């Protein structure tokens, strides 16, 4: 919340678009601005009405360089926009740098995304240090059609204006914290000597050279991957990582998602149609086998022959005793297999077929 807790004393606010960027059609600008206000009206008692006559509470304009508000823009990139806290005259107004290229899609910079952030300031919010929040100061783009406020954004706006008038109060996602004792993972994999864990829209990355985990959006590395990856595994020999969601998979090498993906898991790996998702997967670099965990069974795929081994699937409990009948995530590292289920992690020694340690899921993050 902005220092001094500035706020609008009324719930029904007006806005006006003072001028239009030539980068987009007029109706696209109108649409982006309307949607950006809706992001906030959906979670608060506020309403926003566009007016074309009289002085609006929130005036929106596109400006080049010095535009006489003591905060000149800096040309392309850098500062994209700014907005003023609630108040009379310039208060609440949002200015967009006309030196940027404004878009309605994934290209830099998506007007809807930036406007939704700026209107947070217009309503009295400051910047959030939560990387998953809309009010985080850096531009991070994900889905052009779906801006999801985080719980941090919702808590902020409702602290100023109270809860939404909706019977069912809106909620938003929270950003995973490496040292959260309740942290669980959707997927995990080794990646060029590092470990990567996946949760919702985020990855948590643990490098051997850094004692702390890095948390950021999956889209930062791989913009075309979906949220909520369900399984991932590295084939180190091929320098690739496969990501799975539903019956589709993607292959990445470094920062590149290889062309031609997503593909269907049934065609490539030979899963029967009854398998609709993979829970977890890892590759054994010594044998060239990849293990897929699906419900209470596992399958084994030969990376050289490119086919599923015979006599599979088998029951997880028979060959991996002690880890339970279902897993969330798994990877192999230094001759041990690490299975994750809920907040627990099982360090498994495959030679002796036994669990040698039960750890917290976030034990890799030096909490």
């Amino acid at each position: 919340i902005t220092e001094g807790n500035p706020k609008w004393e009324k719930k029904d606010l007006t806005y006006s678009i003072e001028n239009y960027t030539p980068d987009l059609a007029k109706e696209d600008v109108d649409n982006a601005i309307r949607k950006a206000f809706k992001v906030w009206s959906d979670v608060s008692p506020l309403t926003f009405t566009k007016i074309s006559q009289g002085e609006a509470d929130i005036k929106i304009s596109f400006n080049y360089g010095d535009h006489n508000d003591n905060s000149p823009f800096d040309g392309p990139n850098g500062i994209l926009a700014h907005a003023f806290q609630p108040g009379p005259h310039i208060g609440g107004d949002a200015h967009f740098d006309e030196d940027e290229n404004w878009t309605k899609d994934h290209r830099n910079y998506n007007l809807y995304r930036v406007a939704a952030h700026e209107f947070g300031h217009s309503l009295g919010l400051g910047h959030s240090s939560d990387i998953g929040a809309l009010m985080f100061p850096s531009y991070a783009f994900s889905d052009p059609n779906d801006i999801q406020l985080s719980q941090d954004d919702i808590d902020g706006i409702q602290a100023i204006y109270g809860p939404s008038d909706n019977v069912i109060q809106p909620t938003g996602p929270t950003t995973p914290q490496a040292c959260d004792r309740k942290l669980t993972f959707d997927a995990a994999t080794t990646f060029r000597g590092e470990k990567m864990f996946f949760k919702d829209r985020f990855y948590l990355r643990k490098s051997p050279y850094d004692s702390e985990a890095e948390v950021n959006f999956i889209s930062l590395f791989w913009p075309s991957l979906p949220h909520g990856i369900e399984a991932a595994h590295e084939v180190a020999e091929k320098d690739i990582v496969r990501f799975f969601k539903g019956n589709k998979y993607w292959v990445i090498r470094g920062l590149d998602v290889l062309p031609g993906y997503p593909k269907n898991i049934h065609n490539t790996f030979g899963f029967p149609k009854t398998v609709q998702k993979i829970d977890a997967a890892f590759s054994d670099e010594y044998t060239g086998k990849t293990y897929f965990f699906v419900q209470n069974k596992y399958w084994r795929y030969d990376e050289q022959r490119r086919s599923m081994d015979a006599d599979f699937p088998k029951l997880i409990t028979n060959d991996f005793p002690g880890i339970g009948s279902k897993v969330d995530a798994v990877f192999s590292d230094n001759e041990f297999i690490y299975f994750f289920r809920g907040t627990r992690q099982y360090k498994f020694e495959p030679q002796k077929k036994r669990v040698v340690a039960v750890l917290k899921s976030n034990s890799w993050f030096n909490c």
Partner: protein
Amino acid sequence: FPAHLETKQQDLEIVQNYLEKFYDLKTEGVRIAKKKGSSPVVEKLKKMQKFFGLKVTGKPDDETLKVMKQPRCGVPDVSQFA
């Protein structure tokens, strides 16, 4: 200013401008070269690194510079927008 030896002059300017704009670093009295640990730049840098979830070193390391070069909103992270 205990900058990494390889930090370029241009990067130092980016750091100073960024901290002035977004972390309320006062230009007056700030000298780029100050004895280690006593510079207001270091304190502001630590504040910025903590805010962005970076390793808090007080030095303009690569990760910090990377964040500073990202496109962003012009409203400061600390103090009011005047």
